[in-house]
């Protein structure tokens, strides 16, 4: 059988070839053995004999966060902590037991550490306790022999020198949770913290930097003998904000105990100088880890300290919305500025009666006086003529009803309703009465203080769609260039119409009879233009109207009106816009406007172009640093 024999021959020949290949590969293995065990033996022997190479990741220092003048708002402090390397401890539980003789550990803590030790790779250290005192450190070092696998490590912890005043802007850092893991080995370092809110979260990657590593020679007990090689990572970038820390301090103090917020922004560049939300919380407590009690207190607090009210508090704009109605009416030539309405204190529409805030009425008012006195009846009338869709359109052009994409997480969009919105979301047609209500900034209308500040800035800067921003620059290593100011598009609005509204706003603060006359700036060179707002929180019933509307102080806090005020200054060359909202504060003129006046006054005083301000700046910045 020659075919069979043929096949056999092929098989034998090829089997021999394969055998040769195998021999070759085995020879390669032998060669590798020779290389590792004879030629490189010395090197590996040094690495192995008693000393072990231990590679450790180095956490880069987290970048600082500064205010616009370089005042540090978030810095790093040294932090001594005790770590435990599971594979070096012969019996983790016994070691923990011994450790708790020195640093008392609760059972809960112990189980947490054990769980952590199981989850991680056995050579990755687990944090036993952070923020050790010097005393603790000394006692751990002294008893090192009884604590196999334990070691003291100097880490850095985040510290916020200004505590609660910047909590909402800066946010805080906290331990990495399971969902945060991205594969970046830095995140697996014990005690590593990442930004969880605010600027810390938005710029987390830049602030974090890049990890380095160090090769340590460690003896059998886990004690470090020396460092063999070190690869410094890259420290986190320094983030400079547009915030003026001293001004923010001032505003926060001025807000006081109230549940309130205040935004100040540059009307041309959009730089936010103040973003104060009161009350704040202490971000240092977050960095160290809150206990359940503290957390419960924070989330159940009636004045919502965890909420950044500037960007996430949504309020009816009240009368501060009247500029939008006026502009919509003027732009669409529905009325002329001279258009007169007689205010008798109320108007009727169908079966409903719509009241003016002034029960006895304002008499004849034109547009300027309508704004100045904040006459509701005037705006009912013109809102009715313009219609909700055109009003809503104008409001959106001024930045209301949508997020402004500020560089901060958690911004809320607010709500500017129109016919389509109601049909889609409430499945019913828009009624004319709702247009009237919307004309005085009530009803479905919702805005954030940031949006109101942006709206005011856009009025002040002649209709440029400026957007607020918080980051001045992000400096990595030696590179540091301020982020360029974006160019903003024009809103395309008739300057003459804008001038009328601005004149009205000037009268609000500066003319007798203006709703905020008491809050004009004390410096006669600086004229502030503004608009008050009082947003009703509860519904006033017919019966209450008959028996007399209750005064705010007679009501429980939660039912009192929100006080609002928006303004810009100086009138001849607008620089800054401000929005103040005091939750359940009462009237805008009595509560919000004085705060705005004081903050605006301080802002102008600190403005670099103002006379003598540069020195004052330098001085207060120095003082802040020293403090």
């Amino acid at each position, binding site marked *: 059988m020659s075919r069979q024999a043929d096949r056999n021959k092929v*098989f034998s020949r090829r089997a021999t070839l394969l055998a040769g290949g195998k021999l070759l590969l085995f020879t390669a293995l032998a060669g*590798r053995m020779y290389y590792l065990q004879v030629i490189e033996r010395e090197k590996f022997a040094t690495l*192995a004999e008693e000393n072990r190479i231990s590679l450790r990741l180095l956490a880069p220092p987290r970048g600082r966060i500064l205010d616009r003048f370089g005042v540090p708002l978030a810095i790093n402090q040294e932090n001594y902590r005790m770590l435990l390397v599971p594979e070096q401890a012969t019996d983790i539980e016994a070691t923990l037991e011994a450790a708790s003789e020195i640093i008392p550990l609760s059972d809960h803590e112990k189980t947490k550490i054990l769980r952590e030790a199981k989850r991680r790779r056995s050579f990755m250290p687990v944090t036993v306790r952070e923020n050790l005192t010097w005393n603790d450190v000394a006692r751990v070092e002294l008893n090192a022999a009884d604590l196999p696998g334990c070691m003291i490590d100097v880490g850095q912890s985040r510290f916020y020198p200004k505590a609660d005043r910047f909590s909402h802007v800066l946010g805080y850092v906290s331990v990495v949770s399971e969902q945060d893991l991205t594969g970046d*080995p830095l995140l697996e370092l014990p005690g590593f913290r990442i930004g969880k809110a605010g600027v810390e979260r938005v710029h987390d990657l830049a602030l974090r930097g890049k990890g380095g590593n160090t090769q340590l020679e460690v003896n059998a007990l886990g004690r470090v003998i020396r460092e063999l090689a070190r690869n410094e990572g890259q420290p986190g970038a320094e983030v400079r904000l547009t915030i003026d820390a001293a001004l923010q301090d001032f505003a926060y103090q001025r807000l006081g105990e109230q549940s309130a917020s205040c935004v100040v922004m540059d009307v041309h560049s959009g730089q936010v100088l103040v973003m104060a939300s009161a009350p704040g919380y202490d971000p240092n407590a977050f960095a160290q880890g809150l206990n359940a009690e503290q957390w419960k207190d924070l989330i159940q607090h009636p004045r919502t300290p965890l909420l950044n009210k500037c960007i996430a508090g949504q309020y009816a704009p009240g009368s501060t919305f009247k500029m939008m109605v006026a502009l919509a009416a003027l732009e669409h030539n529905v009325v002329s500025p001279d258009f007169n309405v007689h205010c008798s204190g109320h108007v009727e529409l169908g079966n409903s009666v719509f009241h003016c805030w002034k029960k006895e009425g304002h008499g004849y008012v034109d547009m300027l006086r309508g704004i100045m006195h904040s006459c509701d009846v005037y705006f009912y009338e013109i809102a009715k003529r313009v219609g909700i869709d055109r009003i809503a359109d104008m409001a959106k052009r001024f930045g209301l009803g949508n997020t402004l994409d500020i560089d901060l997480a958690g911004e809320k969009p607010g709500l500017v309703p129109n016919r389509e919105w109601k049909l889609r979301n409430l499945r019913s047609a828009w009624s004319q009465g709702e247009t009237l209500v919307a004309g005085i900034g009530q009803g479905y209308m919702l805005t954030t203080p940031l949006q109101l500040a942006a709206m005011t800035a856009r009025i002040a800067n002649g209709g440029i769609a400026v957007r607020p921003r918080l980051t001045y620059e992000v400096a990595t290593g030696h590179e540091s260039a301020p982020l360029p100011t974006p160019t903003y598009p024009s809103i395309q609005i008739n300057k003459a119409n804008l001038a009328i509204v601005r004149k009205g706003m000037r009268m609000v603060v500066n003319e007798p009879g203006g709703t905020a006359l008491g809050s004009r700036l004390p410096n006669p060179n600086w004229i502030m233009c503004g608009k008050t707002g009082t947003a009703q929180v509860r519904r006033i019933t017919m019966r209450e109207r008959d028996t007399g509307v209750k005064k705010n102080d007679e009501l429980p806090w939660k039912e009192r009106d929100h006080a609002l005020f928006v303004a810009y200054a100086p009138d001849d060359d607008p620089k800054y816009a401000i929005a103040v909202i005091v939750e359940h504060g009462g009237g805008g003129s009595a509560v919000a406007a004085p705060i705005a006046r004081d903050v605006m006054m301080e802002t102008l005083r600190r403005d670099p172009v103002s006379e003598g301000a540069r020195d004052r700046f330098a001085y207060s910045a120095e003082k802040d640093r020293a403090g």
Partner: protein
Amino acid sequence: MILEPRGNMRRDGNMGIGEKLWHVSWSLVALISLVAGVGFFMLYSAADGSMSPWANKQIVRFAFGVGLMIAVALVDVRFWMRQAYLIYGVALFLLILVDLFGTIGMGAQRWINLGFVQIQPSEIMKIALVLALARYFHGASHEDVGRPLFLLPALGLVMLPAALVVVQPDLGTAILLILGSGATFFLAGVRLWKFGILIALGVGAIPIGWQFLREYQKNRVLTFLNPERDPLGAGYHITQSKIALGSGGLFGKGYMEGTQSQLNYLPEKHTDFIFTMFSEEFGMVGGLLLLVLYACLIAYGYAIALRSRSQFGRLVAMGITNIFFLYVFINIAMVMGLLPVVGVPLPLISYGGTAMLTLLFGFGLMIGVYVHRDVNMGRRGASDDV
């Protein structure tokens, strides 16, 4: 010749148990036991000088496995040939089953839990594929093997289980199946340029296949290419393995004296990295001796294959030998940093029941081929038709 011929047996293969036992190559059984014995000693050392938890269990498994091996060897080879496709089909079915319902173990779906025992279908497939390919090529003439259309079904026999194993995901076993089968194709006489085309196609498919790899598998490959990438992860294992092995030097640190492994920072020292521990304690001399022992085992495979009168027997013996060789080579190359870390145990020595039983089953087949070396085999495994 390693195997002493003990005279020809009857060509029809109708032998009694006693006759068959006489033909079992007991020297091979002794060699296998010797290598396994090395394993017991290493497991004893790995447990810090204790029979538990590894050595005692491994010894029991080995004893059972040797029994299985002899039993398999006594079964008429024609039976295995007749059932080759059926066994393959069952293994394939189990693989599909495990992909669908397999319980999670070691981060991968590899096991089927039958309640009293866990089986790993990819292990069965290693043997089943050898049998199926051997049967396929057994009846093939030299002209058949030259025809691409004839080769396509055989290619399918390989790629189907390989794909199922990759999905599990078990890259190591998939590579083993493909390389082992490739050797069988080669031995069956497939032209070299056809391998060239397949290899070219395979290289072309790498970017596509890359997308099917799990994140950790990609990381392993990337880490192999650049160990600096992950100094605390997979790179750590390889670094530590090289330190332990290299520090063993020419003669080693002595039995149970391997500081690196005894101090517990050699990972997986009782399974995939057991060769490192062996080399740390017995040095290059020990490592070479072990290599020689493995080489002897492989030589037995060749001797058996060359003595077999049937193509089926030859291909089975060589198929088992090739897989055995690949195990040894991949594992040792891996612990020495020549190949990426893939989960491949050191045969007969690493702790683990399934791998051991599969291997001994394979050796059983190999010995069976020897026992039935002169049996006449037709195309379909009957003795009469030619």
